[in-house]
């Protein structure tokens, strides 16, 4: 069994894993970080999005061994010292979630969009969210939340 060493939410963890272990399985089962979800298994829905070395990646199609030596941030690592990340705050303020299942991936993608694009307009947000599916909200309030979160992030 290969050994991986990954820094997750600021803590470096090492483990022997089955070579076929996906990053999402490693996070959910080895580390019990269950905020990262699996919604589709085919890289379509984005419920599993985490940041690897600062970039949004779908953890359901990433092998844990590929992340050896990487820095991973999950939804659990976004808030600092009990202070919500501005994007988390924006999702609550603008009712950008209902059942909450897609929300962690949605927020991680949204942060990545802002990192890459600054404060995007509605059209850009909708296009950039193409890899994240939500069945509850119709995206209307998610779009508003991302815009507000973006403004708060760059402020």
């Amino acid at each position: 069994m290969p050994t991986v060493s990954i820094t997750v939410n600021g803590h470096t963890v090492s483990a022997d894993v089955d070579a076929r272990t996906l990053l999402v399985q490693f996070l959910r089962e080895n580390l019990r970080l269950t905020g990262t979800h699996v919604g589709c298994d085919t890289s379509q829905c984005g419920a599993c999005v985490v940041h690897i070395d600062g970039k949004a990646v779908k953890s359901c199609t990433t092998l844990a061994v590929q992340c050896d030596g990487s820095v991973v941030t999950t939804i659990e690592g976004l808030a600092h010292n009990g202070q919500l990340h501005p994007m988390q705050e924006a999702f609550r303020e603008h009712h950008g979630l209902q059942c909450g299942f897609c929300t962690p991936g949605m927020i991680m993608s949204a942060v990545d969009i802002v990192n890459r694009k600054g404060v995007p307009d509605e059209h850009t947000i909708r296009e950039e969210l193409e890899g994240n599916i939500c069945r509850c909200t119709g995206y209307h309030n998610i779009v508003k939340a991302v815009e507000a979160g973006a403004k708060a992030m760059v402020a």
Partner: protein
Amino acid sequence: MSATGIGASVRRKEDQRFITGKGQYTDDINREGQTHAYFLRSPHAHANIKSIDTKAASHMPGVVAIFTGADTTAVGGLICGWMIHSKDGSPMKSGPHPVLAQGKVRYVGDHVAVVIAETLAQAKDAAEAIKVDYDVLPAVVVAAKAQDKGAALVHAEVPNNRVYDWHIGDKAATEAAFKAAKHVTKLDITNNRLVPNPMEPRAAIGDYDSGTDIQTLYTTSQNPHVARLVLSAFIGIAPEHKLRVIAPDVGGGFGAKIFIYAEETVCVWAAKKINRPVKWTADRTEEFLAIAHGRDHQTHAEMAVDGDGKITGLRVKTVANMGAYLSTFASSVPTYLYATLLSGQYNIPNIYAEVDAVFTNTAPVDAYRGAGRPEAAFVIERLVEVTARQLGMDPAAFRKKNFINKFPHQTPVIMMYDAGDFKASLNKAMEMADVKGFGKRKRDSARKGKLRGLGYSAYIEACGIAPSQAVGSLGAGVGLWESAEVRVNPVGTVEVLTGSHSHGQGHETTFAQLVSHRLGIPIDNVSIVHGDTDKVQFGMGTYGSRSGAVGMSAISKALDKVEAKAKKVAAHVLEAAEADIDFKDGKFTVKGTDKSVDFGTVALNAYIAHKFNPQELEPGLKEGSFYDPTNFTFPAGCHICEVEIDPETGVTTIAKWTAVDDFGNVINPMIVEGQVHGGVAQGIGQAMLEGTVYDKDGQLLTASYMDYTMPRADDLPSIQVGMTVTECPSNPLGIKGCGEAGAIAAPPAVINAITDAIGTEAITMPASPQVVWAAIQKQMKSAKAAE
């Protein structure tokens, strides 16, 4: 209005855990010593199982147990809880619905065996080693062909694959209306099959405590008490006091998580059998194959109109696809949830509808957001629109001319509409949508070589499911009341235990708003408990937009009792007569004095029993209620869709969406608007994107998100939401319900807009670019031929 009371857009209390990754969905839970289940499913739509050889598989690494149908003969089959009778009075027909196939499989994805192993990977590996010898049979896939002579029989017990042929309304009077009609509109309609697709796939963990002989099922359910009732009373897993069902955070339901499925039943049964927890989580393709699908109607509908442009009759013939087995509420969907709404918002004196429900070799079909009502709204709103066009009348004016404007109104198909103002919502929607400016916008589009269309949908639905007497008389196996318990703690904080179940609706906030409003206490002093049969006394769960109208009414009734008892306690504390106590804004006051005591002090005193006479007053402050509604509720409204179409590609863009809904009183406008957004998105999905495709052999071609088009952010417009209010007279809060409205309203609005733009009615859902382009081409050809 207080900042946290009724009518305030309070930010949701539940969000903290969801935005920080601390939600607890079923798959997030692990039990000590847990095993993993994997279901071996049928690759054939229809086949006899000649043999199953599990020998090699059972010796594979990590395998704990393998069960097939031969092991589960003692487990009762899955049930359908609503009895429908055919025209001749005979009860509906169905075959057994075993949890694991008994010698025959009836759809791709049917459950053949379950492998339980130490890890999921080991269970999957072992499943591959199971040898099943199938004798493949011809399959029947399309509902319209299911009753054909020589069609394959899905169940030997059901001749012609016909579950029932049911009807409603006055046939003779309707025929007479058509004979006398000045104009008759005819439409053939396919209401496309959809896969509900809550983002959280179904999951279950069965657990067994041999010390207490108690079985526990963690499951992704919208109604854990109903699941326990069915698993106990009908499937025979365990008596209810030995069976606990927990539905923790549930990631969306949309109807599909109402039903009691084979997988969860097997998990809870097998856990006792092997004396270890058994966990199963569906992957997305399993969900496509085996979750209950929605819609799938084939309908011919006709509308009769007199010389004054008044609708005089409606006749409808529908074939509804039930799939291979009758799911939990399947039989009610194309009957009492569908044909009873065919009057729409209109005064139609004569209606007759016939529905044939048929078995096919496809996944079971049951309630999906709206359940029957979207199908009804599509029939009536398409007919009304097309009729207006054929008569050369403005579609809005034709609607107004035929609107019901006196309430209560008894339709010819059971429903008694109790309140509404259909003209008000239509007018408001027209104003918000700037219908007046449409002509200019259409000309602007034309200059760019684009087609522009406007479509109305004036929908009505029946929610607040349901008055038990009424549904009982129509065949429902259970009453559809709701229960609630309000526990006031000595420090004045409150726990509400509700039989409703939140899987996105925000009950932890809206229900707390009601309590905050009524008792005058901070919303943070209220917690809502749901989803656990050990905690909540009973409940019927959440579906059919019932939690506000029925669930909250139960809480309201319990609060009445709490208030009444608290007044008695306050009378003791204030040394006054009970009749002299007023309660307002969280304060008990002696009438005409400044003597008062706050709610918290009264709560504490309710538990200091030695202060009052036990002969007069029991200690404690906790009350419960079972609330049974007196009527359905009738949310209604008008949505207007405006589209722009590129005739070169068929690509349709929704330029503007206006929704005006009358939901009665609204507790939290932010949450209600969110429900409208989500419903509209699912309705647009049905109209333009989502299609479930089986090939002729019954293979599901759309079994992942790479093949089934889920609406994404860039497919959808911003949604403009407005409201009108007529209070619902049949429940104490005046609430009608809002969960399904968007999904009901949207499909006809989209198709009316597209057909308005392209000038032909011949279009099917989903109206993908290909479908729209082909319709435009066909229209152009026939126009050319006519020249």
